[in-house]
């Protein structure tokens, strides 16, 4: 899962729906694994497959027109459950970036902890990006983590996005929070002593 992140240029998969919750990203009945493998197969399961497990043709993941490692979703992406399985499903399917105008808190952290970059853009940028993808599914977007910019290559529109310096460093160097916290166990012991 620890993949170093730098600059990504890719076509996009559009999901222009608001409030996509984690039960849609990965339904509860697929949470039964004890490892992190295979969740990508069930990403958006109930929108993607019918009752007989046949692909639903007009769902975007089944539409050969669309592909790439950037998912573009409507406002309030990832609301609901804290299940990290949703982030494992997104990463497992092959997405490296999710672009939306607003993310639910816990899910956003879960993406970052799995080296998937949540990119928050303005409502206007998002709307124009959906339009660009609709006009030409082969258009690309560039996400530049070092410069913290996202570019709609069809229109040239560019926005900067926020990420704290610590997390940016982690993503660019393939480090995670457990590494950091274990190195800092002495600070925790000092805190515990202070509190007594």
């Amino acid at each position, binding site marked *: 899962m620890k993949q170093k992140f730098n600059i990504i240029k890719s076509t996009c998969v559009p999901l222009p729906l608001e409030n996509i919750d984690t039960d849609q990203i990965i339904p509860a009945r697929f949470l039964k694994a004890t490892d992190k493998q295979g969740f990508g197969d069930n990403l958006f399961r109930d929108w993607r497959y019918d009752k007989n497990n046949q692909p639903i043709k007009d769902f975007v993941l089944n539409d050969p027109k669309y592909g790439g490692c950037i998912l573009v979703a409507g406002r309030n992406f990832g609301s609901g459950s804290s299940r990290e399985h949703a982030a494992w499903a997104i990463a497992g399917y092959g997405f490296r970036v999710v672009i939306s105008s607003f993310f639910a808190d816990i899910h956003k952290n879960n993406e970052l902890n799995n080296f998937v970059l949540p990119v928050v853009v303005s409502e206007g940028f998002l709307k124009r990006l959906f339009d660009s993808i609709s006009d030409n599914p082969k258009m690309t977007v560039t996400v530049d983590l070092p410069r913290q910019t996202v570019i709609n290559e069809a229109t040239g529109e560019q926005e900067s996005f926020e990420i704290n310096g610590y997390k940016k460093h982690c993503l660019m160097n393939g480090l995670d929070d457990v590494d950091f*916290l274990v190195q800092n166990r002495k600070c925790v012991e000092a805190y515990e002593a202070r509190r007594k």
Partner: protein
Amino acid sequence: MNTLFDKIWDSHVVQVVEDGPTQLYIDRLYCHEVTSPQAFEGLRNRSLKCFRPENIFCMPDHNVQTHDQDKPVEDAIGRKQIDTLDANCKEFGLTEFKMNTRDNGIIHVVGPEKGLSLPGMTIVCGDSHTSTHGAVGAIAFGIGTSEVEMVMASQCILQQKPKSMRISINGKLPKGVVAKDVALYIMAKLTTSGATGYFVEYAGEVIKDMSMEGRLTICNLSIEMGARGGFIAPDEKTFEYLKGREYAPKGKEWDVAVEKWKDLKSGEDAVFDKEYFFDAADIEPRITYGTNPGMGIGITESVPSLNKIPNEEKQGFMKSLDYMGFKDGEKLEGHQVDYVFLGACTNGRIEDFRAFASIVKGHKKAQNITAWLVPGSWLVDKQIREEGLDKILSDAGFVIRQPGCSACLAMNDDKIPSGKYSVSTSNRNFEGRQGPGARTILASPLVAAAAAITGKITDPRTLL
């Protein structure tokens, strides 16, 4: 500034990482079987032990069956998750309340009732409804599995400090209106993302007058408006609820603790990033009509008309109604339903069973209804029997099942069939939440009870 949230947060800061998050000390980590196995595996891969195993409490709740718990879980993969939790607790030396023991139940019901969740604590769990524990005056929030691993490895978590919000509900709740209605009302006003980025303090006369069970329900639902968590400043009711509980301090230690806890309140001069005020008189029994908890109405109201919905939300709104089989502008009172679910970390406590029993007493379950009544823990089950509620419920044709998360998210075999309507006291009405194709109408235990005896969506005030 000077909010209760600040006080608890600030007293748990280990350090602030440069140009980064805060390293926050965690007093209590709860684990269940679904979101913990990969965290334990992570520790093993890094050759780590739990840093403070005495602060971690585990119990299976999501996969457990609600009947014949003396037998192994039938579903092999669900059983493996439970067995994995058992094995991990043994390997890492953690306390576990195992399935089919008197200590077991839904983690968010068991934590407070055992006195494990206490005022002033920081509490986390790989479960978004961890906000429930905020009702005792703690900062409690849901986290992902990577974060569970962080806490296991260091008893700390890295978090950005959220903004603060206070929601005050003043006045007296009208008859037939309970904590769940208050929460559903607030959610409809704020939407499912209205509190994202915030930690909420609930206040006002309604909260002050509310029982601990009601407060637990309100805090439980904080996440459904996007908040990281919600809490209520501890008061005499909190202390009375916690006194004598298994893990609460005892004797002299109790007195010292209460003195300390009395300081846990926001200052008179506290400044919140956002404040909302609501009037209890405006709230009636509530139901949801759509596929997120913010899509709710008063029980006598109609589903909104399409022309009232903003353009950018129309597609999602119609997709929801299509899934639910409702029409815009439709009145739902009197609409036939098929299932009733009483339970979950939202409404699986003793007061919820009392409320349900108060409506169905002397009536019979409607023929068309399948009812699942699932206590939140074995302790709740014991109270139900001690109070004689089991007799009232069985006389009315209801069966009490065994504790667990059950049909709230249908990870066990309590699944609502596709296309069927369920009036449910749980917390989410997302597509497929109670089973593929299931249609969930969120409501209070009173509304659920009214539906259970009439077979349709019914205003419980007509039965009081």
